[in-house]
């Protein structure tokens, strides 16, 4: 329910803070700003706008008009960011610059702008001095697959299923799937898809994708993937860090842990769990347990 405001309020207060809100949100286009003053006489609207810009100036806020938009050069209400924070912001900014165009790049850029809008003078000084000396280099990230990533980001946003032709173990393979999201790994990227027939997620190395064609059918709305239960024992159980998509179902008397994993692409999960050697055993579902046994047998066959 909307809160009832007490009747008496101050129009100037509303106007100055509405202007500030637009500036903070980087939405202070000339027309948006003038909307604040629509109740004033049309002839006086510009005078009123100047009056409010002067008020901000007296308060110490520097506002510039750039391409028909008002932009704040400093903020009246800042957050406390120290050297470590600015170093982190700088690092993410460098990374954002090399990201191929898409949702992740756009959202990260907007978030960083939002944070920078809350810098005080000191933070601004540190930011500019670090910017000129920052040697974090991500330029080699995704350099060879930029166009493919942009294409994948686009299909993830679209509402239709896709047919993807890609290389799996050097062989061309086709799958009909829903493109879910681009996963940026250390220096490379994957397209996470939901395989409709197998009801499981799969991460495709983007450099292995040959073509993507859109199908006329809409993407599904509900993904159901198998929940995998496995146990870990010995020193692994003592040192294991749970992943985001996992929880501990039970801890046995000898320290063995029963872990439940949801939504991790099956191939990636198997590759991860086989690394833990005999300290990790898949309990269910049976089909994935059998896949793991097959993987072990196939690896052993190499040495027969």
């Amino acid at each position: 329910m909307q809160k009832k405001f007490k009747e008496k309020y101050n129009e100037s207060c509303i106007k100055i803070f509405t202007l500030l809100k637009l500036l903070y949100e980087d939405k202070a286009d000339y027309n948006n700003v003038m909307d604040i003053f629509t109740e004033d006489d049309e002839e006086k609207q510009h005078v009123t706008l100047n009056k409010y810009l002067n008020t901000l100036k007296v308060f110490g806020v520097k506002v510039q008009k750039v391409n028909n938009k008002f932009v704040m050069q400093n903020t009246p209400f800042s957050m406390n960011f120290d050297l470590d924070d600015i170093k982190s912001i700088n690092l993410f900014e460098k990374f954002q610059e090399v990201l191929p165009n898409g949702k992740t790049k756009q959202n990260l850029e907007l978030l960083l702008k939002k944070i920078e809008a809350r810098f005080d003078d000191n933070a601004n000084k540190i930011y500019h001095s670090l910017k000129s000396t920052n040697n974090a280099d991500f330029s080699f990230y995704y350099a060879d697959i930029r166009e493919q990533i942009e294409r994948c980001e686009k299909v993830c946003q679209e509402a239709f299923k896709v047919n993807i032709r890609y290389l799996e173990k050097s062989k061309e393979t086709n799958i009909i799937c829903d493109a879910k999201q681009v996963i940026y790994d250390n220096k490379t990227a994957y397209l996470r898809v939901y395989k409709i027939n197998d009801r499981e997620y799969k991460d495709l190395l983007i450099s292995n994708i040959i073509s993507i064609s859109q199908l006329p059918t809409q993407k599904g709305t509900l993904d159901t993937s198998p929940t995998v239960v496995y146990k870990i024992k010995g020193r692994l159980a003592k040192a294991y860090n749970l992943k985001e998509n996992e929880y501990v179902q039970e801890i046995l008397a000898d320290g063995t842990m029963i872990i439940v994993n949801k939504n991790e692409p099956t191939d990636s999960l198997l590759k991860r769990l086989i690394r833990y050697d005999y300290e990790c055993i898949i309990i269910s579902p049976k089909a994935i347990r059998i896949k793991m046994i097959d993987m072990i047998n196939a690896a052993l066959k190499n040495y027969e």
Partner: protein
Amino acid sequence: MKEFMLNNKVTYNLMSFTGFKSMLLFSYLLEAPRSYEEIKQYFAEHQYLHETISIDTLRVYINSLERLGCEIVRGRKAEGSKYKLVKHPFELKINDEHAKSIIKAFKSVYKSIDVEDLLAITKFFEKISGGIENQELKETLRNISPLKKIDSEILKLLIIACRKNDEISIMYDSPSSGIKNIDVLAQKLVVANNKVYLHGISPQYKNTASFIVSRIKEKPVVKLQKSIKADIEQLTIGCEIYDKNINLQDNEKIISKDDKKLIIEITSDNKFLTTQRVLSLGSDCKVLYPQSFKDELCSILKKMKEEYFAEKI
């Protein structure tokens, strides 16, 4: 006030005094909860204003700020009936999409940055996570760093020890043999498997040893004289790779290739991590040399198979 504005070339009738006063009140409340008396005094003593404010005018300002999205509560009389700004529209608010993007970006970069930078990011995430409204994403951002459960004082000392290549003594809670004292020639801190490891040379271990930093129980003690020799034998493992589209790591190089396979060499000073890497490649990888590594790998695979058959589900 007039004098200030004259100096700054802003004339008296060309600014909104009420707007200015409401900004003053807002920033004063932003600092701390204030009583009416304190606000009145602040206005009266303000270097440019020098005017008082009535309780009715203050209420109008408070109403206006609430209309703009502020939440202002008045404290108990016993505590001075102070006005407290609980929420306001200029706080850093991070929506779900923005939170997911920075989480995604972090996952892409954290393995290839210095542990020092990772420490800075861990603190930064703690600070900005307050702006995330979605509870689940807030927790994810707060806990995503592998440094989250590590004592930052111990970590800082290890960073210095690695930088200076010091010989240190650590109290380590080994997952296999419990708490013990270990001497290590500190080499580097490495992030892998969502954990931070101290890599170093220790007389108690054959190759370069790796210690999970979260299991180091006390601050490391730097030894004044070094007794551990720094020369360590590198492990070179030759493998046949049957997936020609494999994503090679930095320590792997192609020796030769034909239509069906690649021959690669893995160079490492850490047998444990190399074994994990080879296992993860499954049947796409066949170890060619050295024979000792090949034998060890075979016995691990056989034991894995036995474990599955020993336990019927």
